[in-house]
């Protein structure tokens, strides 16, 4: 019985090596190999305390418009007035 248990344990140990996950990324020349990133406008707008932009989730145009308003706020000739 002990021999059988020892045999099973050794077999399991030996087979454990075969179950090892691939640790090397398969590279393809010239193509991004990392994780996909999600887009900014796919998020919900932040809570009011963060004072971020307001846009409709998933609508790229509304997100771009929100960011553009912040860009234009860098122009003090327009922001402060003539």
């Amino acid at each position, binding site marked *: 019985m002990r021999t059988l248990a020892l045999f099973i344990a050794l077999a399991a140990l030996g087979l454990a090596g075969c179950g090892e996950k691939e640790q090397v990324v398969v590279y393809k020349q010239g193509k991004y*190999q*990392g994780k996909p990133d999600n887009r900014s406008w796919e998020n919900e707008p932040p809570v009011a305390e963060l004072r971020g932009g307001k846009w409709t989730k998933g609508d790229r145009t509304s997100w771009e418009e929100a960011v553009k308003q912040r*860009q234009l706020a860098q122009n003090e000739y327009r922001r402060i007035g003539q």
Partner: protein
Amino acid sequence: MARMKFLCDAERCIECNGCVTACKNENEVPWGVNRRRVVTLNDGVVGAEKSISVACMHCSDAPCMAVCPVDCFYRTDDGVVLHDKDLCIGCGYCFYACPFGAPQFPQAGAFGLRGKMDKCTFCGGGPEPDRSEAEFKKYGRNRLAEGKLPACAEMCSTKALLGGDGDVIADIYRERVLRRGRGSEVWGWSTAYGLPPKPGAQPPAPQPQQAPTSGKS
């Protein structure tokens, strides 16, 4: 489609390093890594001293992307160049390729260990879920996903550092140059990523006492 860029107005930069501090604070960048820094030319020369804030310029044809042996760089739909730290092997090729010295390598470990590359993300995070803890720890804060601009540009007290869509910030810069009546000879009218002049914009009258410059673009 926006192409996110930085533009630093050397006429306005007062070398306060507020942008550097804002970046460090916003992204909790580790000691020894400077995603942004202020470079001063002609330091100490009265009347000739100019400062400019430099970080990753998010090149449209980025050399770091071209040389990366593991292809860990990608460009977002807004033209922001980002990278995946899980893939980066810290080889430093991007550092040699970058003309701005943007890629940074933490060296906090023993034996001169060089860690994974860190650089300006245009406050756009990285390939982790947006506004997540994992993204913040690896790449810093994702302000773009909050509808904001990079902290360095928004914190700039003199608005020397502009960040945003290249077309929009080029228009802001052009208006400044028109109002102050000088500056175009330094950068050229095609500055800020080659946007053609607007129909209403007029360059300042040529200065007769100035010698013609051969390198004018």
